[in-house]
């Protein structure tokens, strides 16, 4: 295979990586290469056998593998080079990639530009600092999803799920359909972590108990999990005395948050935004390192796959333009998260182009106004951390920006207790 003269290299082939590679090719990059560590294109889409993919991108309700297949076909048709079962072990600030596989051994690549599309990983039990024993039977929801949907194994029969992230709720339904008993989905916050549509379709429709403002205070069992103790929590998220109860179960799934996977980005010296866990990017999705772009869940964790692909397309297009030595507009205005805003992406924009901003709130609030300086204001009935805000701004609106920094904030709220 020919690995010289690469215009755009993309790390990862999930809904972000494939979308970025396709757009880079369509933008005129001649030699586009995807590096994927698994045996096939698609990343985590393979284990997402449920529907709800592509409602916006394709206007159709697809499963994860179907959604991935459409992109994979296009990757093939466009003649994009693909290296499977290849793990990138290192990238440098001058875009040198070191990768290993069992055919070519250790590879060293020098693409003209690079797109980071490594996606995200699940928060683990260790990061939760979850008290109790360390038996078998505790999995992240995504690991369990792979066992059930790809490998054909059911981890256990009596299941408790901690956290109400989307994968957790989807696995609650999946395991119920497989004949397991999901005894409870336990969420420490007063509202769910994932999408409302998943609460309705995965929990309510299957009569799975959702315990809000509860947490797990201990796991029991030395060899295999035997039970968990749950408790109600107060406003400070501390367990309330006397509210403890034990639930017998053989399996505990964790769906307690996703973290953008940026080990490689760090190696290249890409500056990360502590608020998103991903690289800080401008509207072209270029990172702090020239020629390294990023898109999808590696930048920030999205709610919908459609948004992941769209964002990565921006990165792919920009990477192709960079490879062709086209100038990317670099005037920078800084976007700052204001009241009740956890983060905004992109972190910097140019005022010369239309742009779409993505933001997430810290807390749930009702009857609020989303404001951006003096140039944008919109009333919203409700905002939730589990549902991303999307703000389209036109060039003419942005031209009214006077300062170099502008704040995005949620105003006029009565905080829900």
């Amino acid at each position, binding site marked *: 295979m020919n690995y010289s003269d690469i215009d755009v290299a993309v790390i990862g082939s999930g809904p972000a990586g494939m979308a970025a590679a396709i757009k880079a090719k369509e933008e005129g990059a001649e030699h586009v290469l995807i590096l994927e*560590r698994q045996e096939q294109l698609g990343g985590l889409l393979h284990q997402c056998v449920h529907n709800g993919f592509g409602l916006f991108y394709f206007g159709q309700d697809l499963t994860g593998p179907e959604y991935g297949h459409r992109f994979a076909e296009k990757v093939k048709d466009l003649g994009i080079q693909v290296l499977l*079962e290849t*793990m990138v*072990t290192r990238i440098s600030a001058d875009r040198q990639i*070191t990768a*290993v*596989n*069992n*055919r*070519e*051994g*250790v590879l060293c690549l020098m693409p003209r530009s690079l797109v980071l599309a490594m996606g995200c*990983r*699940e928060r*683990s*039990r*260790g*990061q939760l*600092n979850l*008290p*109790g*024993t*360390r*038996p*078998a*039977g505790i*999995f*992240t929801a*995504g*690991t369990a999803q*792979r*066992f*059930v949907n*790809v*490998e*054909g*194994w*059911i*981890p*256990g*029969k009596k299941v408790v799920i901690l956290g109400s992230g989307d994968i957790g709720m989807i696995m609650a339904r999946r395991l119920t359909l*497989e*004949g*397991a008993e999901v005894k409870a989905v336990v969420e420490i916050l007063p509202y769910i972590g994932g999408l409302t549509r998943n609460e309705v379709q995965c929990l309510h429709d299957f009569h799975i108990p959702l315990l809000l403002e509860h947490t797990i*205070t*201990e*796991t*029991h069992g*030395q*060899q*295999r999990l035997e039970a968990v103790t749950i408790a109600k929590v107060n406003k400070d998220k501390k367990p309330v005395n006397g509210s403890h109860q034990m639930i017998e179960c*053989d*399996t505990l799934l964790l769906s307690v948050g996703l973290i953008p996977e940026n*080990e490689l980005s*760090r190696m290249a010296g890409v500056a990360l935004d502590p608020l998103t866990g991903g690289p800080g990017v401008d509207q072209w999705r270029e990172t702090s390192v020239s020629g390294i772009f990023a898109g999808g869940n590696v930048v920030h964790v999205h709610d919908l796959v459609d948004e992941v692909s769209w964002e990565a397309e921006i990165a792919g297009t920009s990477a192709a333009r960079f490879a062709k030595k086209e100038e990317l507009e670099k005037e920078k205005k800084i976007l700052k998260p204001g009241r009740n805003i956890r983060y905004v992406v992109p972190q910097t924009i140019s005022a010369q182009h239309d742009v779409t901003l993505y933001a997430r709130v810290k807390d749930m609030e009702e009857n609020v106004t989303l404001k951006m300086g003096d140039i944008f204001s919109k009333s919203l009935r409700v905002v939730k951390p589990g549902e991303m805000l999307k703000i389209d701004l036109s060039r003419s609106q942005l031209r009214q920006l006077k300062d170099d920094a502008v704040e995005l904030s949620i105003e006029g709220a009565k905080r829900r207790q």
Partner: protein
Amino acid sequence: MAQMETEVLIIGGGVLGAAVARELSRYKVDAILVEKEADFGWGSTKTNMCIVCQGGDTLEFRPEYRRSKLVWDSMPLMEPLCQELDVPFKKVGELALIRNNEELSKFQKLKSRAEKLGLGGHQFIDQDTLRQMEPNVTREAIGALYDPHIAIVDPVRLTIALIENASQNGVNVMRETQVVRISQEVNQFKVETNRGSVMCRFIVNAAGTSVDKIARLVNSDDFVLYPIRGYVGILDKNLGGFIKHEIHMRPDAPGQMNILTPSVHGNLFFGTTMQPGVRGDCSVKGRIAEIGFQNARKIVPDLSERDIIHSFAGFLMFRNWEVGWHECVVQASQKVPRFISICIGYPGVSAAPAAAHEVTDLLRREGLKLETDESFSPFRKASPVFNELPEEQQKELIAKNPRYGHAVCRCETVSEGEIVEAMRHGATTLDGVKFRTRAGMGRCQGGFCTPRVVKILARELGLSEEKITKKGRESRLLLHKSKELIEAQI
């Protein structure tokens, strides 16, 4: 195994049992080592801060204690041992932080005692030097006492290396073999296990937290031990280099030990809160975990809870006040001839080399003939760690065995080749692979590699994935086949 015969039976495959086995393999002695778990070093050996060459670091090591002598005698032995066995050993040195005059006087006492013992090299350093050595430590520290001896190892790897070397030199090692009964016959013991019985003349009881239980089987429990539970947290490798020395601070409350240290694999460890516990209850208590982290923050204020990737609890066996809280057990039974018990408690790993000599001496005194075995080789070679090799060697390895080019664990970049090699050396479980290769020890804690490792284990063992366990016995990971539960309902 129906019935076996041997001269010496070692009960327990932790660091002490392993060190004794390896020491005995220098001689023409017939020995068997039995371990009840699916792999070696899974008791107190694995649940600690991985620090060795202690002894000059706290005043609790009083000269009159046996334990202190074993730790001091082991200091010069540890590094050469690790070299012979090809296991990582790193001399990091300790900085004991000083915040006020009261602490200073404690450390002055410690320093003068260390000098008297010939453990020289301790020195006081001022605030500026401390800042240069460790820019991230608390501003509260006005200086520190530097102890150059303190080093770090991987105690489980050390144990496995000792076992492998003992085994190369003729010791028969057996896992998942639990002693259930011991009866005394004329000049020998009959030791019954879950897998048959062993006739032996000598017993070395190195059963860790069960050492008194085993002694009771021959009515020789002439010592009392109390389990003390310690808590340790592990921080992400991203913080590697954040501190370079083992840093110790005097605790503000009793029952706490306040330590932050790098590990040989690049993580940081913090801990440990010590409190009496119920033996075998290795659960982490929420409140204790909180205190542990607060304490770590007293040493380095900038630590973030987000960087904790794992935490665990473990047991150390302490003796009672009568003989000294910090005393250990290394003794031949008063009542039963040829029965030797050994339990160091904290710090067992540090004391292991000298303790093994001591046990060998005790065996000799009890009548074991020790004739040097000329064929003994002290060397053992570790399996290649792909991630740590230079690129040229990585290429060679993949050319020879393409499985080294298949990365299975992304966080620690562990290849299929290493996992298969670990299995060839005895890993049969998910945790066995983890401790031998580090697959699953990274920041995602096995979220990515668990299904992949399970598949490799099943394939290499020729078993269904349903049979694969986390850590042996009843710890199966996957309880049902897809559709099995629904079909049962219909």
